[in-house]
Every structure is written in C-alpha cells, then in structure tokens.
C-alpha cells in the first residue's frame, strides 16, 4: 500500500488515513506500507501508526513500514517508538 496522496502524516491527515487503514485492513492480508512520499510526521501520526500496527498484529495479519525517510525516522526515534512500529533501525 502506497500512501499516494499524502506527503505528511500529522494531525491534519490522521482522520483521512484512519479510513484508508480500516479499508486496507479489510481487504489485505499482508500490508506493506510504503512511506516513500511521507516527509513529515508528528506524534498524532505516530500514534495512528501504532494503532494500525497493533490492530494488524492482533488480527493475525502482517504489516511492514518500508522506505521511511530519515526525517520521519528521526521523529519516530525521538519518541522511541521505532521498535513498536517494527522498524529495523
């Protein structure tokens, strides 16, 4: 799943993204979240990702975040949520 129309994952996008995630959860068994186009993330976006990751895991499916840009990774690392998000760093 490529987040085509989004370049940020912040408080302004989380509501749209929640709908996208719910749909993906229904339709896909193994979710590959391509974050190549995401330049910016905040704690609200991180929390939504954490919710998605734990929901997917609880439903015995898989999710993987790929192509995470350095700027985004930096923000994730500040809150030390990279492990919970399954990022290999």
């Amino acid at each position, binding site marked *: 799943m490529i987040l085509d129309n989004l370049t940020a994952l912040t*408080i302004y996008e*989380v*509501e749209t*993204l*929640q709908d996208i*995630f*719910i749909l993906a*959860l229904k339709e896909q068994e193994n979710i590959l979240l391509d974050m190549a186009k995401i330049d910016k993330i*905040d*704690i*609200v976006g*991180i*929390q*939504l990702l*954490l*919710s*998605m990751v*734990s*929901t997917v895991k*609880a439903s015995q499916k898989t999710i993987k975040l790929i192509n995470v840009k350095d700027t985004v990774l930096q*923000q994730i690392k*500040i*809150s*030390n*949520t990279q492990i*919970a998000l399954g990022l290999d760093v």
Partner: protein
Amino acid sequence: MTEELEIFLEDCDDQLQMMEDALVDMQSNGASESTIGTIFRAVHTIKGSAGMFGFDDIVTFAHTGENLFDSIRQGDVGVCEEMISLFLLCKDHMEVLINLLTEDKELSAAQKEVGHNLIQRLEGYLPRAQIKEENIEDIPSTIVIEAAKWHISIRFHKDFFTTGMSINSVFKFFNKVGKVLKIQPIIYNIPSIEDINPLHPYIGFEVCLLADLSKSEVEDIFEFIQEDVDLYIFLCDDSDEYNTLVSIRKEPELKNELINAKFIDEDTLIEPELIIPTVEEKEEIVLNQKEEEIVLNQKEEEIVLNQKEEEIVLNQKEEEEIVLNQKEEEEIVLNKKEESSEPKKKAVSSLRVDSSKIDILINYMSEISITNSRILTLIDDEGSEIGETVIHMKQLLEFVSDGIMDMRMVKVGDSFNKFRRIVSDTAKKIGKDVDFVISGEDTELDKTVVERISDPLLHMLRNSIDHGVELPEDRVACGKPAQGRVDLRAYQDSGTIVIEIEDNGKGLDRDRILAKAIENGSVKKNNNLSDSEIYKLIFSAGLSTAETVSAISGRGVGMDVVKRNIEDLRGSVEIESTIGQGSKITIRLPLTLAVIDGFLLQVGDTKYIIPLENIKECIELTTIEQESLNGNEFINVRGEVLPLLDIRLLLGENKSITERQNIVIVYFGKKIVGLLVDELLGEHQTVIKSLGIVFDQLSGISGASVLGSGEIALIFDVARLIELRNEG
C-alpha cells in the same frame, strides 16, 4: 497562532524587557547580585520556553548567554562595560529571533551571521574548559555537576493534540538541559484502528532524565503544557515512588512495562493490589489529583455566595445605601478571599487578557448604556417603579463601565523604562553624559494612550539629548556640572495626565526659531508672538534650528508629527524654556479615550458634550447681560477678564429658539475660556465614538456620542477650542 505560542511571545517580551532594564541599570549602577540574577533568569526562561516549542535557533543562542551569565553568577567571570553592551546586542538579536517567529519567517543569512558573531564574542568571555565541553556534540549542553536522575511519567489530557503542542520538542529539549537516559512509550492504551479517535491522545511516556535540575525546574519545562498533561515526577532512586506511580496510574500493564524497560527491578515493585496506601497517603493522592477541581469548586461556591449576599443586600436597603453596602460587602468578601487563599495569592493575582477583548466589552457596554438611556427617555414617569429600576440599572452600569475602563489602565512606568536604554545609547553615541531620571512610574493611563504616546515621547527625549543637553566640555565651560540631566515625569492633574520632559541643557534659542520660521514663511515678519507661541513653532513641519543634521534628530521632520499625535489623543503640548538653563515640554492627556463623564448642552439645533473634567463653572446670562455683551469677545466675571468663544458663530449654528444663553467656563491646563452656548441639559455618561475619516479635520470636535433619544451629540475638544479662541 496557538494560545500557547501567544503566551510564549508575550512572556518573551516581558523577559527581554526585564533583561534590558537590568542591563541598563548595570550600566549606570554597576553589576549587582540582583541584576545578574534577573538577567540570568530571563535568559534561562526564554531558553526553556523556546525549547518547549522546538525553536532551536533561540535555544542555541540563549544557551551561550545563559552559560556566560552562570559563570558571572558563580564569580568565575567579571562584568565589564563591553560585556554589558554585548549583552544588549544579544537582547536585540533574541528580539529579532522572536519577531521572526511572530512573522513566521526564516532566519536570513545576514541574521545568522550576526548570531554567529555574537555567540563567538560571548564565548570569548567564557572560561576555556566550558567552551571545549560545549563543542562536543550530543552531550548535555548544560554542564551537569550534581546531576539527578528524574523519572517523568507523562499522560496527556484529551485535548492535548489539538493545542498544537509537540511532545517531541519537549523530548528534544530534555537533551539540551540534560541527557535522556530512557524513553519508554506507553502504547497499551491505544485502541484498535477501528475504535481510535485519532485526535485524542492515548499514548503516554515514561522518561528517565539525567539533569542538574531541581524538581520545580523539571516541572517548569512543562510550563506551557502543564494544563494539558498529567505529570508525575520523582527521583529515580526512590523505589517507593515507583509503587506510588503504579498505584495512581491505575494501569495494570504499567508495572511490567517499567520492569521490561529496566526502570526498576521486579523485586522492588509491589503488586499493585498489595499497595495499601495509608489514610494520609490516600488523602494526599486524592488532594493532588483533585486540587484543580477543588480550587474551581471553591471559586464557584464563592461566586454563588457573593451573588446571594448581593441579593440579600439588594432586598434590604434603599438605593444609596445599596451602593455603599455593596462596596463594603465586596471589600469584606475580598478580604475573606485574600485571607483564606493566601498561599494561592500569587497564582490568581493577575490574568492576561487580550486588550481587544476589553475593547469589545467596552463597545457592548456603551451599547447597553445607550439602550438603557433610551428606555429612560421612553418612560414618562421616572418616579414609577420601572423608572426607579432603570435609574438603578444606570448606576450599576456606570460601576461596570468604570470597572471595565479600569482594566484598560496601565502604569506608565513599563513604557517609560523602555526609554532608559535608548537614552543611554543616544547619549553615548554623541558623546554626552546624561542622567536620565524617571518619576511617577505608577501613574496610570489608558493602554491605547500609553501606546500612542510612546513614539512622540521618544522623539522628544532624543531631541532633548541631541539639542538640549550640551557636550560635557561645553557644560563645564558654562559652569555647569559635566553630566546633564533629563527628567521624564508623569502625574495626574485635574482629570488629566501630565507628562513632562525637562532638561537642564542650553534651552531654546527664541530668536533663532523666529528667524527660521520667518525664513521658511510659517510666520510673518511683523508678528506679535509671545515666547510660548514662538517655542511652539518647533512643532511646525520642516522647522529645525539644529546647526547639524545628525542621525538622531535635526531634520525638522517629526516634531509636527509629535504634535499631531498628541492632538489626536485629545491632548495638548506646551513648552517653557530659559536660555542657558534648559527646557520643559509639558504634555497633557485625557485619562481615557473611550468613556467620559460629559456635560450635555445645546447650541442652535445641535447637542454638544463637554468633558466634565474640563468645566470650571456655568453662568446663566440674563437678558440685560446678553444685550450688554453685544458682540464683545470678553466678559467680566467677578472682576476677572474672561475671553469668550461664541459656539454658534464658530460652528455656524442657527439662532436658538430659546431666549436663554449660558456661558460654560472651560479650562485645559492653565488656559481658560468661556463658551457661549444656549441651553444646559446636564451631566451625561458619554461613550466616545469616532466620527470617521470624513470628519477627521473638523477642528474643535473630538468625536460623537449617541444619546438615549437616538440623537447624535458632538463632543468638544476643549484644548483645540481654546487654541481656536486664542488664534482669533
């Protein structure tokens, strides 16, 4: 701009002003423990708050300054004059950085260069070891001498995300004040993707911070979000506190989370259900958690009580007594409040309110007053029950109106103190030694007036220093002390505020001003001007008698603007001067711009209002006196000659339908004039409304007011009327 950011910017403004005041004080009185402390705290606070918002440019810059002042505080570095000047430049640069935030602009290359140079100059004063340590990246930027390990447990209130605050900025800032040893995100409360409200925070954090900070200093880091977060802070080596944390958080998973993240050993933590707090502990926990609620409830109870007390009083007494008793009751309740809430006094002693909110209140208040007056005119019988109630309502509205107006009043001292540095810089730049003395700082004036008078005052002060006070050698040659003196004082005088700027310089050269005015055509050759009128010519456009044009003043541009600004505020300006001894500029301003006690009268078909504070007395003219007046411009009042101004002639009003004529004697400062009017209609609480730009040039009229009947009454500008009379 978020509310938090606005508070941050306002706070920075205050801190920078405190810093500047202390630095200017240092320049004249030398460094003291108190001034050093003030500057250190100001820089520290700005750095801390900026860190909270992630404003790294400000943090980095303030950090170097803070380090230097910390060294000064410790006695490792001494203060010299160059250092004070450097710190004033640093203050200016911080102001630039903060203004860029307000304007949402990026730092330009030139500004970066300025900042870089200033940091280098600051570092030049720092002890070597400190600079070396500072340059190592990723280490705590404050030198940790006796660092403590603090555990910070953070949960967020429901609206935290929507405040726009960033917790990541707080975490980044942790690394600037110390070193984050551990951050454990608490994610077990985050609901599934179907159930989550993405705008609500469910995440939490457990943090271990190594820093040379006290508990209150750690709490201060959260100053701007303290109302939106739930914090629990304690020293990491206090294992009992971990048990308390597990207990108060009521999160069954927390214990394992703390153990897994190695905050504490398994053995140290007691099973949550086994923790049985003592009665005192329970009370303390409940008290801590509910403290805010209790304070709020108490306030609500007090409000209800006050309302009830007022109601009882209202039912018991007659009107005049009511007003008195209400005041007494208020005082008693206030005293009780002060007694009972002494420890919290500081927290509730002031409240920042956007001044535009007060303006809105004033506007509504004025509309209510007008409507109430309208009701009063619609009631035929003022003695009826409804009539009395409306009159009572009018009195109460006046109290409310006074209260609101009082909110707009600010002490002039804050504004005056800002001039200290400018005076000091100006004097230094042109090689003059000036003792700048401020008095009457506690005098209160309408906020708008204070803001609008600031630039004219600054201009006049610069003129006093540049053209008034002589160079030290010239002063000594005249037998004066080398140091000149400029006084800025404010005081209240008969319903107006007087601001004086007085210097003991060379005084105004009457002949030179007159010659210059004749030369540029503002005055005819054969004039009969008094000294005071000649001095006032310096307010004419393009008239400068300065021999040299400096960067500070001397171009003759500005003094006309100064006079216009003062007149726009319904004020007046006078000059006294003695050659060789100095000059004094006296500015008179009305206390407020929005609501005045006025006196309503009629001339021809129009109603007019005179500010009550400008009225000396009213005299009714008998028919014989009217006839004897016969176009005279003066009248004899108890042996004194009083100049008269016939308003009907001045404003082209129709002849009055009544036979009566009155003289209202008005004064402004030392000048006095009798206004010839038709009917006197009595006192009137006047809400001043602007006449708009169309009538901007209407001389002698400062605004208008809507009467209860819906009619418009024009408000006289007494200062201008007196001038018009004197100009003939």
